[in-house]
């Protein structure tokens, strides 16, 4: 599959999703990029902004199996991964696969569960396999986790530690729609759309899991110029020496930027990466991988502000500015 074919296919997928998920184009685009780059996504946003709908629609359009886990304080690791259960008729322990054994997993309100349960999922995300009682079982392919968390309610939550946040390829902010988009949502509702009855929405499947795996393999062929490798390294390097930041991004962030840029280039039908691919993904790839100094936090500076500041400081390759 070449870049042009891949771009055409992704555009079809995007258009089909955008038909139902209105006004979240950037979130959809970044989610598809993460999917192509074999990464996982953390969605942060207030309730009711369409996070769950996005995952359900995505599963239908991609033709993938999907499951949902509602994280709660009493959720156990085995509730995620599954476990060995004694079978009375057979007189032996049998493995009951947990909901993680799926292709598209929605981990809703991931910060509601204790660290132990979070770790079980994050390990599965990283290794793409689950080990129970010494037996390792691979997860199906493709495997994408979309986790959500609510930024408003902080009581009774277990914030994800930095090391675990780093496992997410992108952290995406789902913002409230503006008035025009809100109106479009209302019009769609009046037109008969019901988010709880997606069967009536006639969502068409645009690809198959095998084809998706081929697309994931194809983006590795996208060319990256040496100057862009330097550009990525400089951006990530700046996060480690920035005055507002307590700690900077890891090399995993550089890799996420690189692979994400390749996926974005392929999405637009190009077989080479441009600086714009890198720059446009920097916030999504870096915002959860850097930590603010306390005084910056007091001043109300966000990690997004820091990334924007760093991007301003780094010269884009081939820029003609003096």
């Amino acid at each position: 599959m070449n870049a042009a074919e891949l771009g055409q296919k992704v555009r079809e997928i995007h258009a089909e999703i955008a038909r139902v998920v209105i006004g979240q184009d950037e979130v959809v685009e970044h989610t598809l990029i993460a999917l192509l780059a074999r990464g996982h996504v953390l969605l942060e946003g207030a309730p009711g902004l369409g996070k769950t709908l996005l995952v359900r629609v995505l599963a239908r359009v991609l033709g993938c199996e999907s499951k949902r886990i509602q994280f709660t304080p009493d959720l156990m690791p085995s509730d995620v991964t599954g476990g060995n259960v004694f079978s009375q008729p057979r007189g032996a322990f049998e493995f009951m696969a947990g909901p993680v054994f799926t292709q598209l997993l929605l981990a809703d309100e991931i910060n509601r569960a204790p660290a132990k349960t979070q770790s079980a999922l994050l390990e599965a995300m990283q290794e793409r396999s689950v080990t129970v009682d010494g037996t390792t079982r691979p997860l199906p392919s493709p495997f994408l986790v979309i986790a959500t968390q609510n930024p408003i309610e902080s009581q009774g939550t277990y914030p994800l530690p930095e090391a675990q946040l780093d496992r997410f390829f992108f952290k995406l902010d789902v913002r409230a729609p503006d008035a025009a988009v809100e109106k479009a949502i209302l019009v769609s509702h009046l037109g008969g759309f019901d988010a709880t009855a997606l069967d009536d929405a006639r969502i068409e499947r645009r690809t198959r899991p095998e084809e998706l795996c081929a697309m994931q393999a194809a983006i590795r062929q996208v060319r990256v110029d040496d100057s862009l490798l330097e550009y990525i390294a400089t951006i990530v390097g700046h996060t480690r020496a920035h005055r507002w930041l307590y700690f900077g991004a890891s090399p995993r962030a550089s890799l996420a930027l690189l692979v994400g840029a390749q996926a974005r280039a392929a999405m637009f039908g190009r077989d080479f990466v441009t600086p714009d691919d890198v720059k446009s993904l920097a916030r999504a790839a870096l915002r959860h991988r850097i930590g603010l100094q306390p005084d910056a936090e007091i001043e109300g500076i966000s990690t997004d502000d820091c990334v924007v500041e760093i991007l301003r400081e780094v010269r884009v390759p081939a820029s003609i500015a003096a």
Partner: protein
Amino acid sequence: MIGKPGAVALLLITAAASGGTAHAADEQARRIPHRDAAPIVRSVLERPFAFCHDRRIPLTEGDLRWRDLLQSKEAQARCPDLLEAWKRGATATEPNHSGPSEIPLPAAGPFLQTFVWMGLGLLVALFLARLFSQGVAFRRSGSPAERPPVPGASVSEAAAASTADVETDVERLLSRARSEAAAGQFQQAIADAYAALLRSLAGAGAVQIEADRTNGDHVREVGRRFPALRSPVEATFAAVEEVQFGGAPADEGRFRRIYDGVVGLIVRRLAQPLAILLLCGFGSALSGCAFQRVERDQAPSGHAAVLAFLQQYGFEARERLSALTSTDDPTGQLVVLPGATLDEAGWTAIEQWVDDGGTLFVAGGDRELPDWIGVAIEPARSSSSGRLTAAPEQAARFERVRAVVPPGPHLRPLPAGGGSEHEPAEPARPLLLRAATLYAVEQAHGEGRVVVLADDSLFANAALLVEDDAGLLADLLREGGRTVELAGELTGAGSPNPLTSVRRGRLAPAMLQLALLVLLFFACKGTHFGRPVDRIATHRRAFSEHVRAVGLQYARAHASRRAFELYGGYGIERLRERLRLGRGKGLHAVAEGVAARGGRPIGEVMRLLVDAHPGAPGQTSGGSAGEDLASMRQIATLLTEIGGAGERSRARAEG
């Protein structure tokens, strides 16, 4: 049998006979077939000619001559507004036909003049501002050795950046790109073409060139400001990026494609405002020039409707604009109206043209006719209108004449056969009579003929409304061929060359100023006034930005306690003011007032005020920066709750 000389003679006779037959056939072909004029006139008058459909049209004394002839019900039915116009009498002056006609140029009104002067002033101010900013930029940038190193760049890059001269002139970048392409250095040529495009877009305010901006940023910016340019700019950038990052070879074909795209975009950017400017200029000039002429041409004495009538009848009728000294179509007809200016050279050229077969109509006019035309135009003798009748010898030719014209001059035949080279060989034949006076005569001259009319009444718009004047006019013209040119006041008014045009238009000072402007433009854009530097993006900082900058300085100096002291003192004073407490009242009174208004526990308020009070014991040993910030926010909340001018204006602004 016919001998050889006889055969030659027979051949000659046959050729002569066939030539004569061909000539007759030509004559027949040139002649326009007779048509009934009445339906054509009706069709013409349905068009909105001002003499017929505008009751406010200004009339001259000449127009009023037709009033007595247009009292018929038929005329009133055709042109109801004309009678209303008659009632206003003569409100316009007769055009002056004694000298060369002058075309009134549009006079700019006070608003336009003010606008033009404002535009000029703005241009000068912009020019001076540009010079000033260049000067400031030059001083700020200093010498290359003084430039600070680029953050994050390696030593070699910083050195290169400090010594490299950045070319910002679009023309020179394009020129350099061409030279490099000619030398086979396509990589650099593409880079320069790309730089030229960016500089051009930056010059138009479509993009900002900064080191952190990508082509995607530029495309989005262009899309916001000039949506039509987004697609071509994106395509050109994509082609450049294929070379820069895609590993595509920089060859001639690719360079040509990028270069053409860049030039196309630059020209397109310039073409739009230039076209609008030119259209506005020409449009206003032309509309201003045409205004008075249209009025006169559509008056009862004008000729616009007659031209339309002749065209519908089948003639190729038009107004002649080129000079009469250059008549060259011997098969056409030329009508010399009273407004046409003719000098000796003009008459000589016309005589030659008539000799070659042309048909000349002289339609009256206060002029002395040359000797080769055997008739003179005499001033009017009676003031009564006259019915036109055919001269006795022309009774068969004009048997159905039914035409009336207003009173006017008459013709006086001159004796012929004087032997002079310029005198007519035969006398003029009378064609038409008005009452008892001679109205139209015809005279052969060489291969052609001359028809002289005592006035131009038959060519006036109003004649279309009177009996069958139009039919008579068509009959007079039918014999002369299809082409009819009316020579009036505009004939010969055009200039033979641009220099004459400039001289006539008194445009020399304007042209010189324009040349000076071009020179100045070249001096400004073609050669830099100083070292080329990027434009400095300056904007006025908001007050909140200053406050934030000062706050950051306090934060960096770990002086949050000091900031809290200052803000606390300010807050307590404002609270005291808003609660209308005098200086003598202490913190307790303030706390009581705040607690009463805001419904807060007085102890909590008191603790906060004591903490915020400047010089309070133990204050300097306060908490962390975070605690100080939290306390300041609490004081701000108190201020908001108590209200005051500041809060009211803020609420208004937010509302």
